[in-house]
């Protein structure tokens, strides 16, 4: 595991992190992916609230839900909690 580019002289001291985790895409972890039926969706935003990864967003401008598949791990909590069963877990 010595393929990292920076030498000990180049990295910041004390282990101060220099990359936000938003650059680490965990979306390829999933086997199932949530697909939303916009007709059934009431935009309650419970899915946005419950997602452990913050991979579902409420776009205030568009006034709609958006899934960020770059971070979704396919856990299915959103589908399970959706009050109108608007989300279905389909194989990726």
């Amino acid at each position, binding site marked *: 595991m010595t393929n990292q580019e920076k030498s000990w002289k180049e*990295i910041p001291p004390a*282990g101060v*992190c*220099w*990359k*936000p*985790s*938003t*650059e*680490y*895409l*965990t979306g390829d*972890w*999933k086997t199932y992916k949530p697909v939303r039926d916009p007709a059934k969706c009431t935009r*309650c*935003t*419970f899915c*946005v*609230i*419950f*997602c*452990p*990864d*913050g*991979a579902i*967003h*409420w776009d*205030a401008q568009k006034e709609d839900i958006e899934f*960020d598949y*770059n*971070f979704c*791990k*396919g*856990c*299915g*909590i959103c*589908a*399970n*909690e959706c009050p109108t069963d608007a989300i279905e*877990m389909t194989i990726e």
Partner: protein
Amino acid sequence: MFTEWKFTAKDIAEKPDLFMSGHRACAGCVPATVMRLVLKAARGPTIVTNATGCMEVVSSIYPYTSWATPWIHTAFENVAANASGIEAALKILKKKGRVKEETVDVIAFAGDGGTYDIGIQALSGAVERGHDFLYVLYDNEAYMNTGIQRSGGTPLGASTTTSPAGTVIPGKLQYKKPIADIMVAHYMPYVATASPYFWRDLITKARRGLEVNGPAFLHAFAPCPRGWRSDPSKSVEISRTAVETCIFPLWEAVNGKYQLSGPSNAIALNPGKKKPVEEYLTVQGRFKHLFTPKFKNILTEIQRITDERWQNLLKKCEMR
């Protein structure tokens, strides 16, 4: 005493996450949901500190960090001491004019590992000294990060890697330590229990904990599908069933006065709503050995102790 912050689901949904995506928690990890929701209650400049554990490790794999707030981790048993040092520094630096913010909130996160057992000394000390911080316990009922070993927060009958369900012994033989009640006994300003399914209640309590002048303790129930051997998609639902069976009742103690919260209050007023513990236990693999003839006496005991603690709680809330 509290500002009674009013918010809608969309207010919460719109608020940017201070616990950012891209962390390496398991799929369906509810402690991660707890962290996100507690941070939604942040009201301004905030410094966060974590004990060693799942949430610390998944959010800070060098060089990546999931923390949009300033953040520090030092060791396993001392997150309350971490918070004490930060709070003391902020206090004096503000006095000396070297910190310009009016208020900076300090939040300490730890699992049941870093709270019930190895962390209890630092927690008790910090609370006794009255530091102004919010301590959030994300309780997944075992030392998950090191491989699902039993903790003081593991409930009776649960199978963990150091209290496995074998042919002779049916999982953990001891009861779950009543950590929140222990904290109330410290005469601290605010103690509350919360479950992520009841997100509005959780966020409100986190905000109250931040507003309180002095130490606040929030015991958040946080199912772990990996350790509990349950379906990841059901993780939030399990946190609902825990409340509905009174295994994890929701309450607050403001200056030592107990009061039930919404969903648990509803059960107290209408005992018919209380669900049998089986509904909670059947969906988790860590309890499956209890559904065999040899160990079903433990099931009975779980129901009994749940009822006993529920009745004790009702008494404290002056509802019995």
